[in-house]
């Protein structure tokens, strides 16, 4: 019992860390910082399932490792490469200012806590911050998607969004079969690979990753 409390305590600590990383992602004015924040968040998320397990389970361990690898290293690496090849200046160029983004992010976090009050939790999840954490990350992802104009930073936003969903998925890690987890990984990896490819193509077609240039198609 007290192990559970300690576990959920450390878990909540990590979740709090992830939320903090959200705010960092929002505040970071340079791409490398942003990518870094996202990478660290990925690693943190990867650790969580191990903590939630009462007894050691290979498959879960594999999933955790896979997540850590992909979210923490592969994708950030990809993005860095894209950034280097595109030789974009490292500024983030927000279309929503940093302060505004921060306010939105923190507002989102508060809203997340408020929303999660309305949603009943199972007893074993009582007191865990998973739900507010995930909602906060999703909202942060949206703010990044809406408020950043570089393709790379939008991809980061998308990643944060995915992380939020992953956080939520942890609620179900006991109940739902691995299928969903596999789904997450598949989605993230394939999604990011494709994103990487497209980012690359955008860079070649428009020799820039500024998506504000991508508004030819309009009414």
């Amino acid at each position, binding site marked *: 019992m007290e192990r559970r409390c300690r576990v959920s305590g450390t878990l909540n600590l990590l979740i709090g860390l992830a939320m903090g990383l959200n705010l960092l992602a929002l505040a970071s004015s340079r791409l490398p910082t942003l990518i870094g924040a996202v990478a660290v968040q990925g690693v943190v998320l990867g650790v969580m399932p191990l903590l939630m397990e009462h007894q050691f389970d290979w498959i879960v361990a594999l999933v955790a490792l896979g997540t850590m690898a992909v979210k923490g290293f592969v994708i950030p690496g990809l993005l860095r490469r894209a950034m280097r090849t595109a030789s974009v200046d490292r500024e983030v160029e927000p279309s929503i200012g940093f302060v505004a983004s921060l306010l939105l992010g923190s507002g989102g976090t508060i809203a997340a806590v408020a929303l999660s009050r*309305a*949603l*009943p939790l*199972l007893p074993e999840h009582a007191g865990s911050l998973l739900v507010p954490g*995930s909602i906060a990350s*999703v909202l942060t992802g*949206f703010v990044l*998607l809406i408020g950043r104009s570089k*393709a790379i930073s*939008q991809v980061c936003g*998308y990643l944060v*969004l*995915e992380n*939020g*969903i992953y956080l*939520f*998925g942890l*609620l*179900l890690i*006991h*109940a*739902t*079969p691995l*299928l*969903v987890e596999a*789904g*997450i990984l*598949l*989605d993230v990896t*394939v*999604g990011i690979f*494709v*994103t990487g490819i*497209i980012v690359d*193509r*955008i860079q070649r*077609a*428009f020799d820039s990753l500024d*998506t504000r240039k*991508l508004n*030819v*198609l309009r*009414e």
Partner: protein
Amino acid sequence: MKPLLLILLPLAGAVLAAVWPGERTRPWLMPVFGLMHTVLAFWLLFDPPVVAPGAWLAFDPLARAVLPAVSLLFLVCAAYGVSYLRVRSERPNRVFVAMMLAVLGLLSAGHQARHLGLLWIATEGVTLAAVPLLHFNGTARAIEATWKYLLVGGTGIALSLLGSFCLSYASLHSGGSGDLTFVALAHQGAGLSRPWVLSAWVLLLVGYGTKMGLAPMHTWKPDAYGEAPGIVGAILAGGVTTVAFTAVLRIRAVVSAAGEGAIADRTLLAIGLFSMLVAALFLLGTRDFKRMLAYSSVEHMGILSVGAALGGAGVWAALFHVWSNSLTKGALFLSAGNINRAAGGRTMDQVRGMSIIAPQSAAIFVAGMFAVTACPPFGPFFSELRVVRAAFDAGRSGAAAMFLGCMLFAFFGLTRLVFAIVDGRPRPASSITSRRFPENASVVMPPLILLAFSLWLGLATPTVLLDAWTGAVAQLYLAP
């Protein structure tokens, strides 16, 4: 076995295409595998297999009611694709053919998925597989369209994943075993935790609605349909959207089993009418006939979700409309592709006098336009009439009035644009480009065949389809 074959066969074809050496011969893989798929699908349509209740993948009544339409559409488009890829021989077609077949396989998976997660994975797969198809042309515009499709669609998909999680979490309350097949979920019924079900419904509706292209999540549609080749547009509008629609239907059944059917129907009605309104307003002013098709498809998605909101009769009519819309839209997209190539332009400022340059395609385009605006004797007339009748049956006269008003404005916009490009004196430029892309049977027959199917569907709806739809309605409304 057969249901699984429906999925594996095209995927195998995709692999084959990926390794196939001959650039000229590769396109033939599409019609070949398409034909096998269609034969299989109609075989299953005529003699439906028994479905194990716990199965994750099965050719259940709902799949039976929709999948053959997609398969048929794909077959005709594939036949068209052969000649299309011949005229576009300057582009490598390896990825294109492989991904077309992959899309078909994943579509079949999505239609047959009876498991929340599986359904989501299949839909996601379709989304990603369609990406290379979208920027087949490789132009900057195509890439921009793809980027928007990917991010908007991806966000939608992410939300639907979150929704699926919410639904499964809802099922964990009152001791759910975590079995996410729709049957099991519906069986839990009122046991599902109400707040989670509702949030799941919202997230899933937005997520799959993005794939369907319901307003305001439709923004990717005009760009994607506008820049993709006509054949891809046809598959997207007639196939991919239907997966999302069947997903919505399945989830709606679970939600109503949880006792929230009324609010689910209200949301469907609201978003459907909103989509129709937005589409009508866009259609009134748009000048690009391929984007026009996209908005018209938004309108028809609205019609589908209105139908889905009107109870059994409405869902029946909606399934009917899935068929008639897929086939008619297919005809429109293919003939639009012909016109686009012949005229070398897409807006009513660049394109004029197509009745002189490409008479047959223009005639098909006009006929298809009348068909898609619910003029008899084509399919959509009958299905939309049934939707309206269902609305009156459900006592929703106001909804019916708004529905018809949007139809009217859509008609104004469509006729305005279509006749602008069909009539008048052609531009000299287009008479040159048209010589490079002459009309021949291989590009005229496929849309004509689709139109003929739509006609046949309306005038003499085959009984097997009738009871397929009835069966699907029974499956969806069996929940207590």
